[in-house]
């Protein structure tokens, strides 16, 4: 979807509206109540000039001094005005509450939905854009609510009540004032028609300016090296000039058709009212009753023009918000991953892979008929060159992508048939790039699960991470992640292992980091894995072959197929075999790394 789109499509408008109604639905009763009170407030507001008119017509001009009545009228006008303001403020607050709650509901549902989306979606999506949908776009929806509820609703109610009151006073004059409505709409419509091309052009040029600036800053070295600096500066100046011209065009429409025109309408309306008066008085004496009405109507004009302007001016801002709302709607309709509906449970932790074929995209297979049987408690190593399919196998075992039926099974049950919560508990993952929260070491291991300190520390010991954690400045309370202690790649992996082991899984999947880690941490990882033997089934994708040297079996993947399998010694005996070459390669790289000053 084009992020720079200015006007929403009709179906987008409908979708956005539907979204708004859905999110606000639970607060229906509050909305209704607020509406009624607002009508009352508008009525009280309209009452003020009426009382003023009565004062002028019944007491002031005829010189009828009825102090009680006068006090009543004036006091009533004050009370009505103040009450109207108080009620309106109260209702606007209630409406604000509705807006905030609706947006909160919307946000929570979007967030919950996003977390349930299939992994394939995250592979395609750009994290930044996704975050923007959940936060910025919903913020725009909030703006939409506020505009609609506060401004539009309020203005419309005010307008209607004023019209009704005017009609009750003098319907002929009211009709004249009512001409303002189509006049204002007409002017604003004309403005938007005439200014739309200039507005779009300005926006596009502004975008262009930003893009040129960003691009130039990023590629400054190349621009300078190519001697193109002056040309680029000229191009930038030209774009700015075009932007300036476009803004002037926008300004023209703005100046002729917005505020000044509306203010002139105001004056014209005044003139019209007075004119009508004058005409009527060609005949007899000016009925004293009429002057008060004139006074009242003069007050009303101001109270009518302002809401009208508010209503029409909000449209352009509304458009942006509608586009954002449509984007949120699209996200909500993205199909979620099918929930695992089975009730199977993981038992001893035996894994069976039978004739597994898989590809991320149809027609581009990554795995070609893998067959593998892993007994409970066994330690299996998986190696292979980049692109051989190792990580894909792991992702499938984690149910990140849907595997073909019957291809994967745990303890005899199809992978897809195992209950979700049991699966998460029983299968642990140590990812290639462990993700650290900006939180303490303790929280990073617990990750929000209800684990007491004893359990956390036991897991850290099992992962051989306890040692280095205690040596951090505040031990388990040391903040890690962004802004916290910097851990080496190996230490991060140990934390991730502790995290996985804390859940006491039956099966542990390990995707080793590719970077070098120091030999001491390497030894720790090996010890930790060794200790799991017999209790936890371990599948480890290894980049450092020393990790899996003692594995019960090593699987060598090559272009999505199992090329070799066996124990370390057997595989090393294969002359020119892939495993042998991989070991040689690692040996040479290790030698090279240990040469020369570190």
């Amino acid at each position: 979807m084009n992020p720079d789109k200015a006007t929403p499509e009709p179906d987008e408008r409908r979708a956005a509206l539907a979204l708004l109604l859905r999110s606000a639905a639970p607060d229906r009763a509050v909305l209704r109540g607020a509406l009624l009170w607002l009508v009352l407030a508008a009525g009280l507001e309209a009452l003020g000039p009426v009382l003023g008119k009565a004062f002028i017509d019944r007491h002031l001009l005829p010189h009828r001094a009825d102090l009680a009545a006068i006090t009543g009228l004036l006091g009533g006008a004050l009370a009505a005005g103040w009450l109207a303001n108080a009620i309106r403020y109260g209702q606007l607050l209630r409406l604000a509450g509705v807006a905030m709650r609706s947006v909160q509901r919307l946000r929570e549902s979007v967030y919950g939905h996003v977390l349930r989306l299939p992994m394939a979606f995250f592979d395609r999506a750009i994290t930044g854009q996704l975050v923007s949908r959940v936060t910025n776009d919903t913020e725009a929806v909030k703006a939409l609510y506020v505009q609609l509820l506060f401004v539009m609703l309020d203005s419309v109610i005010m307008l209607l009540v004023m019209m009704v009151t005017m009609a009750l006073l003098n319907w002929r004059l009211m009709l004249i004032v009512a001409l303002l409505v189509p006049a204002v709409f007409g002017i604003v419509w004309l403005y938007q028609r005439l200014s739309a091309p200039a507005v779009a052009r300005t926006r596009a040029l502004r975008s262009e300016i930003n893009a040129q600036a960003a691009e130039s800053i990023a590629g400054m070295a190349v621009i300078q090296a190519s001697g193109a600096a002056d040309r680029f500066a000229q191009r930038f100046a030209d774009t700015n000039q075009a932007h300036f011209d476009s803004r002037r065009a926008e300004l023209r429409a703005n100046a002729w058709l917005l505020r000044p025109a509306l203010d002139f309408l105001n004056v014209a309306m005044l003139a019209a009212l007075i004119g009508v008066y004058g005409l009527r008085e060609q005949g007899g004496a000016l009925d004293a009753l009429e002057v008060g009405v004139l006074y009242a109507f003069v007050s009303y004009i101001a109270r009518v023009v302002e809401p009208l302007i508010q209503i029409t001016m909000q449209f352009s801002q509304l458009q942006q918000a509608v586009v954002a709302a449509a984007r949120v709607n699209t996200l909500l309709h993205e199909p979620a991953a099918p929930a695992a509906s089975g009730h199977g449970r993981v038992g001893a932790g035996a894994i069976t892979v039978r004739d597994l074929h898989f590809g991320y995209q149809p027609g581009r297979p990554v795995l070609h008929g893998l067959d593998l049987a892993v007994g409970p408690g066994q330690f299996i190593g998986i190696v292979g060159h980049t692109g051989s399919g190792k990580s894909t196998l792991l992702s499938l075992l984690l149910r990140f992508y849907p595997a073909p039926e019957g291809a994967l099974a745990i303890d005899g049950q199809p992978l897809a048939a195992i209950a979700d919560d049991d699966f998460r508990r029983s299968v642990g993952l140590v990812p290639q790039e462990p993700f650290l929260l900006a939180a303490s070491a303790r929280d990073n291991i617990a990750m929000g699960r209800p684990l007491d300190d004893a359990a956390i520390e036991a897991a850290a010991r099992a992962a051989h991470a306890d040692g280095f954690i205690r040596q951090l400045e505040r031990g388990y309370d040391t903040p890690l992640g962004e802004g916290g202690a910097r851990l080496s790649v190996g230490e991060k992996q140990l934390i991730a292992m502790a995290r996985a082991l804390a859940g006491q899984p039956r099966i542990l999947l390990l995707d080793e980091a590719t970077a070098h880690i120091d030999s001491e941490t390497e030894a720790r990882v090996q010890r930790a894995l060794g200790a799991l033997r017999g209790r936890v089934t371990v599948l480890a994708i290894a980049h450092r072959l020393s990790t899996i040297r003692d594995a019960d079996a090593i699987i060598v993947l090559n272009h999505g197929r199992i090329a070799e399998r066996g124990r370390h010694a057997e595989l090393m005996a294969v002359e020119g075999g892939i495993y042998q070459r991989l070991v040689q390669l690692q040996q040479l790289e290790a030698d090279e790394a240990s040469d020369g000053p570190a």
Partner: protein
Amino acid sequence: MTLARLIGGFVLRHWRAYAASGAMLAVIAVLGVWLPRQVGQMVDGLVAQRLQGPALWREIGLLLAAGAVIYGLRVAWRQMLYSTAYRLGVELRVRLYQRLVQQGPRFYQTRRTGDLMALATNDVDAVEMAAGEALLAGFDGTLTLVLVVATMTLGVDWRLAGVVLLPFPAMALSFWWISRHLHAAARQALDAFGALNDQVQETLSGVRTLRALGLEARSSAHFGELAGAASASGLRAQRWEAAYEPAVGLTLSAASVLSLGFGGWLVWRGEMTVGQLTSFGLYLGQLIWPMFAAGWVLSLVERGRAAWARLAPVLDAPLTVDDHGRCGHVVPGTLRAEDLHFAYPAADGTPATTPALAGLGFDLPAGQTLGLVGPTGSGKSTLLKLLQRQWAPQQGRITWGGTALAEHTLAALRAGIAWVPQEPFLFSASVAENIALARPDAPRAEIEAAAREAAVHDDIRRLPQGYDTPVGERGVTLSGGQRQRVAIARALLASGAGGAPLLLLDDALSAVDTGTAARILASLRQHRQGRTVILVSHRLATVMDADQIAVLRHGRITEHGSHAELLALRQPDGHAGWYATQWRVQQIESSLADAEGPTA
């Protein structure tokens, strides 16, 4: 320079526009206060039945004429004042860009792209607003206030004015009080939103871990808390923002009633007319805008000042490249580096502790090819940057054709070197324009020839509009290998016949497959044209055929010779040299990569 002086200088430069706008605003203000008075007199005329027939029409005509004059003047000054203010924005942006374009890598090292972008956009906007909106609103608001109060006091009745204006200071005070609280609440709302944003960012970045640990429900609960906090603080901010209305409403109500009451009493005693009473009501309405304007102007000025405080240092930042050489063109000859020592300075200006180059020297006769290899971070790219004088060595020197690099003008040096950086940079333009970046007037035939040499001609032909296809941010996305080859074509065009005599390729073939790379290298050798080439690569096969190969480790050349010599090199302890070992490693790697299996 302070913001005041910047704007002051700008106003002086455009004094005619500002003076004319000011004059127009003054006329508008005067007419603006005349209107209610006129209405009042007309109402009186109607009541007393003095105003009828042609006299009535004349008065109405006057009213409409005044309204029309106001309208016309408003249209005029709006266009004049705002378009003048826009000019300031253009000026600032262009100045900023011109400055940026002259700055060297040292400047960019310490600044984030995001911050520089914010300067060019938000900050310039804020200064522009201060020069336009703020000036206007300030002038207009003050003038209106003064005129209206003066008219009410002197033109109608000073006693009534006094009584009716009583509530207004309270309104002004409440505005000030509301804006203070609004400011704090808005900041809090912004923080809460930021926290929400951060949490979503963190979660979505680590969604695999979240999924694997089954933490979706917990994460949603945490999000719910943050969303609730954001909602609450948003509500508080909204509350304060909505408070302006009742502040105005209560004041106006009170003022209207006061006007009716006291004014009514004056009318009763014959000291005032009903018409004047009506005018008063209109004047009251005119007082709201100046009240708002005061707060608004202050906030605009504050924002403008803050923005200018960020902009000014960058506009005046000293240039980090010096260009004192006088030699206007490069004489191709031997490229010689002597005992180069260099360390990148830390952000605060002090040199870093680990040197990038620690005593490096080489001798490259014109027309030869030098292959530079070595582990990551050994200094290869750094050397290329020093050759272009993007940085200056702390010790040692580089000469070319006998003249020190520093003696050349930067323009001459840049014209003499064609460089392909590690990260190819394509800008938003057509493929042809990208290739011709250094030689914009090159004919299409030469562009295509360079593309053919870089083995990218066929790829380009397959694009939707061929050489005219837009690439870059908003164009077609090319693959990594294609982008590298376009960058190579660019350098080849720049170093073609009569062009730059030195070609620097910094790991320029990393994303290109071995077969295509071999073709490009063969083509390079064939069309040598006396070019001197320095080829940096991680793949030893790329530099195999170079005249000289140098192994760079930890900022020094540790092995040097031809491919055969380096393969045979033995270290004092009997082990093979780095080059030889690496060669074996890469042979095994490529054998593994080529092992049988279907290709993607």
